[in-house]
């Protein structure tokens, strides 16, 4: 993201961007002789997110491949920056000093004549540093990518329409059938009804039909017995209806009336 406003955000690849502003004068690049006006140093340091960031800058500024750092040169530059900041008594995070020490060590190892023999041979002291630089750089990039995503309240906004007359209605409890059945199981345990002869496969459709018949035969009115049967329900349906009527008779909820032999049977509710 080439976001430039109001941020001490340093972009190595964008040389024309003021690198620092000193006494009102924009400073496009840090002087190559490393001279930085003291006032700018603090700004300069602020622009970096730690020693890895500073090192990356030193490398990128010279268009160098990260995998091929001229360690001596970079170390010298780095150490000079650090010393200068030390002299100016700028508060310097300890990490910068640790890095300086590490660089100095790598440099000294690089300067040593390569041992002719054994294991030491394969060991480039720069490898670990390179790995860390790469690792840091990818997240530095990821942070910029993140900033480049659409931000809420910066690039887009959640919208909202008014709900006039909004009333919070009390919700009715939700019930899962399972809860009802578990409750029933409890009752059954308590009532010890499992042995009841009423426990039959057909029981529920008969019960349902009983309710249906009761609703049909509203109190007081006679209704033809045959009208209670729904032919389209088929043989099983007829049987269930018949059982329901018998059950209702047994429970004294229905009354059957036949005026004479072979006359139509009428049904009356014994409800009140």
């Amino acid at each position, binding site marked *: 993201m080439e976001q430039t406003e109001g941020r001490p955000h340093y972009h190595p690849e964008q040389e024309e961007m003021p690198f620092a502003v000193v006494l009102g004068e924009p400073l496009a690049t840090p002087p190559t002789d490393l001279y930085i006006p003291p006032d700018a140093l603090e700004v300069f340091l602020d622009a970096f997110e730690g020693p890895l960031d500073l090192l990356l800058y030193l490398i990128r500024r010279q268009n160098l491949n990260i995998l091929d750092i001229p360690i001596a040169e970079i170390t010298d530059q780095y150490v000079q920056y650090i010393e200068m900041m030390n002299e100016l008594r700028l508060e310097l995070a300890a990490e910068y000093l640790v890095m300086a020490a590490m660089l100095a060590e790598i440099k000294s190892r690089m300067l040593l004549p390569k041992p002719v023999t054994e294991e030491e041979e394969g060991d480039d002291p720069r490898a670990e540093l390179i790995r860390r630089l790469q690792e840091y750089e990818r997240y530095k990039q990821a942070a910029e990518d993140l900033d480049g995503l659409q931000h809420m309240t910066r690039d887009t906004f959640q919208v909202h329409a008014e*709900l006039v007359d*909004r009333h919070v209605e009390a919700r009715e409890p939700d*019930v899962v059938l399972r809860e009802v*059945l578990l409750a*029933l199981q409890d009752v*059954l345990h308590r009532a010890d009804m499992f042995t009841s002869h009423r426990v039959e496969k057909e029981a*529920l459709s008969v019960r349902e039909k009983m309710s249906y018949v009761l609703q049909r035969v509203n109190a007081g009115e006679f209704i033809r017995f045959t009208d209670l049967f729904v032919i389209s329900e088929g043989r099983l349906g007829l049987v269930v209806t018949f059982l329901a009527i018998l059950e209702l008779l047994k429970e*004294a909820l229905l009354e059957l009336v036949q005026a004479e032999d072979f006359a139509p049977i009428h049904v009356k509710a014994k409800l009140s």
Partner: protein
Amino acid sequence: MPDEDRLKQIVEAALLAAGRPLALDQLQALFEVREQPEKKQLREALAMLSEAYQGRGIEVAEVGSGFRIQVRAEFTPWVSKLWAERPPKYSRALLETLALIAYRQPITRGEIEDIRGVSVSTNIVKTLTEREWVRVVGHRDVPGKPALYVTTKEFLDYFNLKGLNELPTLAEIRDLDSINRELELVDPETESQPKPASHESE
């Protein structure tokens, strides 16, 4: 000046983003001075917007402090649920009563009490009746003329049953395992009951 279409889009975006009524001069102020639309043009844009909202969930309204976009009143019943409180739970006693009415209907309150071994509060019966899950189908012709309760079509609808015979038989309720199996067969829907909107867990 942005063209008509663009003006309409900007006005829409601004009214919806603001979340409060905007007066015409507040709308004007969104534009650079030299491309500022006249109030007449803004009114036209608002009228176009209003027309575009025909048959939609929202509408443009002019209120004291300007214009705003609001939910059409007819959708309030659904939208209000966004702020609904978490529903209370029914008591065990209520669920037992409901189950007994479902399985033993038509049944009187006294019969329920006989089976449960405790009295059934008037409140429970009232709640179940108000919820339209049970109703009185008549009165048993015995002293006291107790009401006979049955379950309703709403009861079946709520629990997603075609008929009472889709309920597990009493024999099957004997052990929990069979309930679970039965429920997977009969009732895959009701397990995922609506969660109240405002209480999403992480």
